[in-house]
């Protein structure tokens, strides 16, 4: 059964220095608040796994949390470069960043293999590209029935998956809908998991196209309203496209980035803001949930 706790407690319990961590959410439902908590807890030497690193990993990389990045596309969607990612790769700032680079289809299949308990997935891909030469975990495989040459990609089995969802019930069953990415596979492939949610409700009302992760597949649930920002939670918040555009300028310069991090991430733990409000809200819902579970 999932435990309903504060975000700080969930990250403290699950994300350790040196871990392999997958924070998933394809443009939609990106767990930004949880990423900020990892930065605040100053985790180091993480292997960060994600199909599209996006702003959230730009922040973690710039904050010095990452040793290695496993990814498919590292850009600011619709805007341009991820400057902290580029600075790490091109100039080793603040640390050198090892890359394990795949296509999106390859990453998706690697999560599927992990969730399926298989050592690899089979797909058509990578042939003729330069990717295979630079990436471990990609190999030719021949079909045992026809002899056709296909591509095998190794399974992803992260230590921790971190995702954001629209809601959970008091028993920790998680429900999300809209663009659903690869979060189900990421949670099922990982040894531990943290889910932040917009709200904790008594009962999960059916929702068209919703994915439900039963409580027993999830480690920790934390209420974090607005926790995807500047990404969004369909039905609750809108994607803050202006922030994505603003990030281009904020992240271009090291000092400006560091100042932003100080103000909006490190200081956010002790001042009022979405994170603090969210955590306060969770304390009561969490207690209620535990009381409910005990009955």
């Amino acid at each position, binding site marked *: 059964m999932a435990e309903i706790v504060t975000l700080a407690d969930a990250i403290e319990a699950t994300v350790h220095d040196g871990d392999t961590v997958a924070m998933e959410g394809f443009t939609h439902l990106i767990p930004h608040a949880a990423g900020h908590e990892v930065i605040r807890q100053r985790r180091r030497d993480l292997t960060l796994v994600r199909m599209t690193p996006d702003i959230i990993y730009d922040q973690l990389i710039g904050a010095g949390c990452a040793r290695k990045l496993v990814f*498919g596309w590292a*850009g600011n969607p619709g*805007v341009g470069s*991820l400057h902290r990612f580029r600075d790490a790769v091109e100039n080793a700032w603040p640390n050198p960043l090892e890359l394990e680079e795949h296509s999106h289809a390859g990453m998706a299949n690697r999560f599927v293999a992990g969730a399926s308990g298989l050592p690899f997935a089979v797909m058509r891909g990578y042939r003729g590209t*330069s990717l295979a030469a630079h990436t471990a975990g990609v190999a030719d495989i021949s079909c045992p029935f026809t002899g056709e040459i296909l591509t095998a990609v190794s399974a992803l089995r992260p230590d921790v998956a971190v995702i954001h969802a629209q809601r959970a019930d008091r028993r920790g069953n998680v429900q999300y809908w809209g663009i659903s990415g690869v979060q189900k596979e990421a949670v099922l492939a990982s040894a531990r998991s943290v889910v932040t949610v917009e709200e904790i409700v008594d009962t999960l009302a059916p929702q068209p196209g919703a994915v439900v992760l039963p409580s027993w597949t999830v480690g920790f649930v934390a209420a974090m309203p607005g926790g995807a920002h500047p990404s969004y939670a369909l039905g609750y918040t809108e*994607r803050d496209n202006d922030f994505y555009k603003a990030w281009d300028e904020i992240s271009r310069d090291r000092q400006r980035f560091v100042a932003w991090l100080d103000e909006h991430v490190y200081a956010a733990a002790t001042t009022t803001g979405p994170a603090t409000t969210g955590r306060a809200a969770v304390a009561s819902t969490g207690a209620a949930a535990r009381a409910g579970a005990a009955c």
Partner: protein
Amino acid sequence: MYTPDEMMTVTAARSMRDGMTCFVGIGLPSEAANLARRTHAPELVLIYESGAVGAKPDHVPLSIGDGVLAETADAVVSVPEIFNYWLQPGRIDVGFLGAAQLDRYGNINTTMIGGDYARPAVRLPGSGGAPEIAAACREVVVVLRQSRRTFAERLDFVTSVGFGAGADSRQQLGLSGAGPTLVITDLGVLRPDRDSHELVLTGIYPGISVDQVRDSTGWELAVSPDVTELAPPSPAELAALRRLLASAPAIPTATVPTAGGAAS
């Protein structure tokens, strides 16, 4: 009057047939597809790799995962499903890709330029969905601005395969789609030679000379003996495009070409 980018977008939109299924990357491909849907191809099926199948956005989205795509789609599927069930079997008619660099066989680089892989001079976003789109869509259309930098003699990294080393490379690699059958730039359009599959200039825009295109190409450009001048945007096309872009979020000028691709 119109700009070279407007001519490029209109040309890309014209290449889409009504009713076809189209895997769309963000940026210019998305603008062109949405323009086509507003002009001659109202039944164009837009598929975004975020899992939105049959999206009908009322404005050009900033990302491939904007809420408007999920809210207007016929179906929303997971990312493993969009690649494995929808793209990989060859169900999609055409894939629209951007590129940072292209070579004479339509191979695409969106990964890195200069230096070596581990410490490149310029690190680009990488592959995203593009390699499998380039491999599996029945046809691929590549859209990019043309210069000696973008039309490169040699790619530092092959992110997505066009015609590989030319001739029957695609068959040898087992790539199911026909590859890049059309490349649209801000100067004109290129199509692959039937046998060698080297790109050949087949169309130029009004006011552009063949020499100008040659000078903007990093290799000795093959030019069709029948190269034709393409029609300028009609007033209706221009009006629709400008209305469309007026509804889109403004994008700051990036210092590097974004991978585009079907990338996020």
